[in-house]
């Protein structure tokens, strides 16, 4: 077992409610991605979970709060920020330091250094490390106690493509062994490949949690592309059944509100000809932008926009020419 349960987490910085009544659950056996726009409270949430920030609410790991865990690194491995180490303490000594408090042997230290590919620089000073090497050392520290749960804040930051691929494979394999992974990332494509489940927040509040596929299906970009010479007859009936039909420049029509099978059945009922009928899946990125659009903290303004007019939230503007719309997740 390695269940994480976060209950009503909250954190206020002065007038700003950074995390607001946030509850979610991370189950073993899956990689749970933690998504949210910049400044939405992801890192604060992770610090709250580990008792590093004082706030309200509670987080338990198999029923125990982090501060009550004996030798905590044997239960929960954490990576919270880039380069959390002293620049002149060697990589190996940094890990030996963490190991000292958790009854972990030097042999295990050498093992995780090998695992993350830092053996060659194990006795080197980390001040010369690149961001990616620093990140590897952070990952090694998280894995040091052979924990059943990993909490990783942007672990892919600074990793090269090989490193990212290795990390993805490692985390999936780790989760497959009945362990829990709770990982934040702003790289949505990466998250789509890595995560099975999602916790999505905006302005410190929960927006969605559940399987990635379910979240993607909430996107309004999910639609049916239809070509039919009989649209004058088909259109009104589709509208009657709850569909919304929108003409496209290329002569096709996009139907939202009904799925492909329903549109096909309607066409059959009234004897309308159909030349094309395809489902258009949304991407995780589209679903994410839609879900967080309303709650995004730092919405970018558009260049040349009318003065005084509020910038449109991303994901809200229709974009018929988007070449990515037809790509499946």
């Amino acid at each position: 077992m390695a269940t994480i349960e976060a209950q009503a987490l909250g954190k206020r910085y002065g007038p700003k409610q950074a995390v607001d009544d946030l509850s979610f659950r991370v189950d073993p056996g899956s990689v749970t991605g933690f998504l949210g726009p910049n400044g939405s409270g992801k890192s604060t949430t992770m610090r709250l979970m580990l008792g590093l920030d004082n706030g309200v609410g509670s987080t338990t790991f198999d029923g125990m709060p982090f501060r009550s865990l004996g030798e905590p690194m044997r239960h929960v491995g954490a990576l919270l920020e880039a380069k959390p180490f002293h620049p002149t303490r060697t990589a190996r000594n940094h890990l030996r330091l963490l190991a000292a408090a958790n009854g972990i042997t030097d042999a295990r230290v050498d093992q995780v250094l090998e695992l993350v590919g830092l053996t060659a620089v194990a006795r080197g000073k980390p001040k010369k490390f690149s961001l990616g090497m620093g990140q590897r050392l952070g990952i090694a520290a998280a894995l040091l106690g052979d924990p059943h749960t990993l909490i990783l804040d942007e672990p892919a930051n600074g990793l090269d493509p090989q490193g990212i691929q290795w990390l993805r494979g490692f985390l999936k394999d780790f989760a497959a062994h009945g362990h829990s992974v709770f990982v934040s990332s702003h790289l949505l494509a990466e998250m789509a490949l890595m995560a099975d489940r999602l916790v999505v927040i905006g302005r410190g509040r929960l927006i969605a949690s559940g399987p990635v596929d379910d979240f993607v299906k909430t996107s309004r970009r999910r639609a049916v592309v239809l070509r039919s010479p009989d649209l004058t007859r088909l259109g009104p009936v589709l509208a009657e059944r709850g569909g919304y039909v929108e003409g496209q420049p290329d002569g096709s029509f996009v139907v939202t509100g009904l799925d492909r099978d329903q549109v096909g059945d309607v066409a059959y009922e009234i004897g309308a000809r159909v030349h094309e009928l395809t489902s258009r899946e949304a991407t995780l990125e589209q679903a994410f932008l839609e879900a967080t659009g309303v709650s995004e903290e730092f919405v970018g303004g558009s260049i040349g926009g009318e003065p005084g007019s509020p910038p449109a939230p991303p994901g809200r503007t229709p974009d018929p020419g988007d070449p990515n719309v037809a790509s499946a997740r």
Partner: protein
Amino acid sequence: MIAALRYEWRRLTTLRSTWWLTAIGAVVTLGLALLIALAIASAGEVSEGDNYQLGAVATQGAAVGGVPLLVAYLFALLGVFCFGHEYRHGMIRATLTAVPSRGAVFAAKVLVTAAAAFLVGAVITLLGAGIALLVLSAIDGEGGTALELALGVGTYTALFALVGLALASLFRNQIASLVVVLVMPTVVEAVIQAVLVFPPAFDDVQFLARYLPFDAGSQLYVQLSPNDALDLLGYDPLGAVGGGLVFAGFTALLLAAAGVLFVRRDA
């Protein structure tokens, strides 16, 4: 608590600055001790059982001449680094994920820093006293006095280091803490003392100068100081025990404030 102590000990011993500062402290203090001893010997004015000379050599003048006690300042730096490094390099998050109990982390830092500072301060002073006894053979070596000096220097060094530790924990800023811990005893206290002791207008509150923490603390090891001449002005410093208690109380207050904030604040 054992885990926190293990962590803190390894933290201290895997830093190069620990070894550098200790080595520099040992080499410079013992080198100076030897030079002072040789200078006294060549002056040929060694009178039998002269404890001021033993103190002068063993503390490189700090016990007799109002000179700063080098080893205490070095350990003040180590005390500042104890928390300064944690905040400067984001180590505090790694520390608290390895040892989540903040009370244990704070207590372990206090214990390990104080023990290391006391031991090094005391041992260096004993070695200095050994040099005095070797070079100045006329000193018949009152062991009790060398031991008293070692205890005094060790205690003062430990308290000084803890002041540095507490300041760095309060300020979370290494530079600010270093400035305060170095300037307080050398400049601020000297100015306040001069203002209180010299102008007759302040005679009524002159006694307050006795409670300047670093100066009071220095009574732990001082045997003879320029301040003694101030008794002409009616100034009467505290003794070793009283002064030590004042400095220890000051340190305890700083530590209490730092400890409470460390537990309450976000890491």
